[in-house]
């Protein structure tokens, strides 16, 4: 099972994924190619999803004097 290389960037990954979906929808590939594209598509989709999932949910405020970060609570 060949391993796919890390995409260079999110933009590259998502563009390639859109390309693959397009190609598969047209449906001119033979079965072997289709499966290869499907695998690559799944890999890229997973990678992109992980990038999104890796976004932390946090708001930090910078202290301009010390340039360090601390948790920020929105005043109501």
């Amino acid at each position, binding site marked *: 099972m060949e391993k796919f290389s890390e995409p260079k*960037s*999110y*933009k590259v990954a*998502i563009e390639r*994924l859109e390309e693959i*979906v397009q190609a*598969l*929808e047209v*449906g001119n590939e033979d*079965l072997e190619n*289709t*499966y290869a594209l*499907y695998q690559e*598509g*799944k890999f890229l*989709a997973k990678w*992109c*999803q992980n*990038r*999104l*999932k*890796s*976004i*932390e*949910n*946090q*708001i*930090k*405020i*910078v202290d*301009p004097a010390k*340039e360090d*970060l601390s948790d*920020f609570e*929105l*005043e109501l």
Partner: protein
Amino acid sequence: MDLSVSAAVKLARDTLTSNPDLINMTVTGEVSSFKLYSSGHAYFTLKDERTSVSCVMFSSVVNRYEQLPEQGAQITVRCRVDLYLQRGQFQFQVLSWQPAGAGRLYEQFLKMRDYYQKAGYFAQENKQELPTIVEKIGVITSPKGAVIHDIVRTARQLCAEIDIQLYPVTVQGETTAREVVAGLDFFNRNREVDVIIIARGGGSIEDLWPYNDSLIVESAFRSVIPIVSAIGHESDHHLLDYVADYSVATPTMAAQLCWQKNAYYRSYLEEIDNKLQQIILRQLRMEQQHLDLLLSHSIIENPRGVFSEYGRQCTEMMANLDRNMNTYLAGLHSQVEHLHICLENLNPRSILKRGYATICDFSGKFIQSSREWQNKLNGKEFLIEWQDGKVKLSNYQSEIIGENSGKV
């Protein structure tokens, strides 16, 4: 004198209003913070570079005008000095007003805008695109107030996870420009955020003036991280708006601009899984159908059937062959028999069976005509053969009588 407050203030007021120069003045300055209240009275500030003073225009004066002074406008007023007794507040009471040309601050803004435009600071080719998704966003604004609330609320509506670094600044006054630049510098040095939002709410031309500061313009221009500017309630109204990579009217719109692709891609990727599966299933199904079609061909279902058919044909052909051969042989056979009979009939010996006799000379040669008798025999010995034996004749007499033409 030991006066009460009221008395003291009244004394001041009376002193002021007794000065004829102070009750009939013509003053030119810039308008800011103009507000018309439901009472019909208007309050604003009139200022120059060093001083600003509160002004009131009572409803009786307001109603005389179709247009009222605009923020930032330079106006000339006829007014009188007044001291609002209850609060001891010094103010001008405006009796009439008229425009005095464009506001000085606004003029300054236009000049700077021209300068930076010609120098290429606003050129489209220098603008950066927003990243495909945003992972971390830097926000330069006040930590208090509606702006940061709006940004966070809007972002949370779009995405479950938002990662913000807030660089707090005072959003008006002398230190604002330096603080904003420090924020830009911080984010550009650390390179942790994908986008920087610089935002502040609405206000007068002076309130927002720091965002025209050349320090901010230069720093924003040099930023390697894309900048979204949301200053006041309008876009493209301050130099920062022009030099930023994106300019929007409100902090809410800034948040939408930044996080909307994340929301889009999140649902797109969820669908993709399904989509990919459907596509591959569809292809597999097609291949399966094709295979089924091939397999259902009679040759595959029943290979022996093919052979038995051939076998049957062979058997049939062989039977035909046999039959034909037999007929042929039988035909040959009867032909041979027929020839045999003919041959037999032509056999000179069978003629004897019919009672005829043959005549031949002593060497065995047949005499077949009277002429031959005359020429060949000429009196010699000859043989007559009947079916039961031969007779030799010698010493005989013969003579030819009669001739046939050959026909008997």
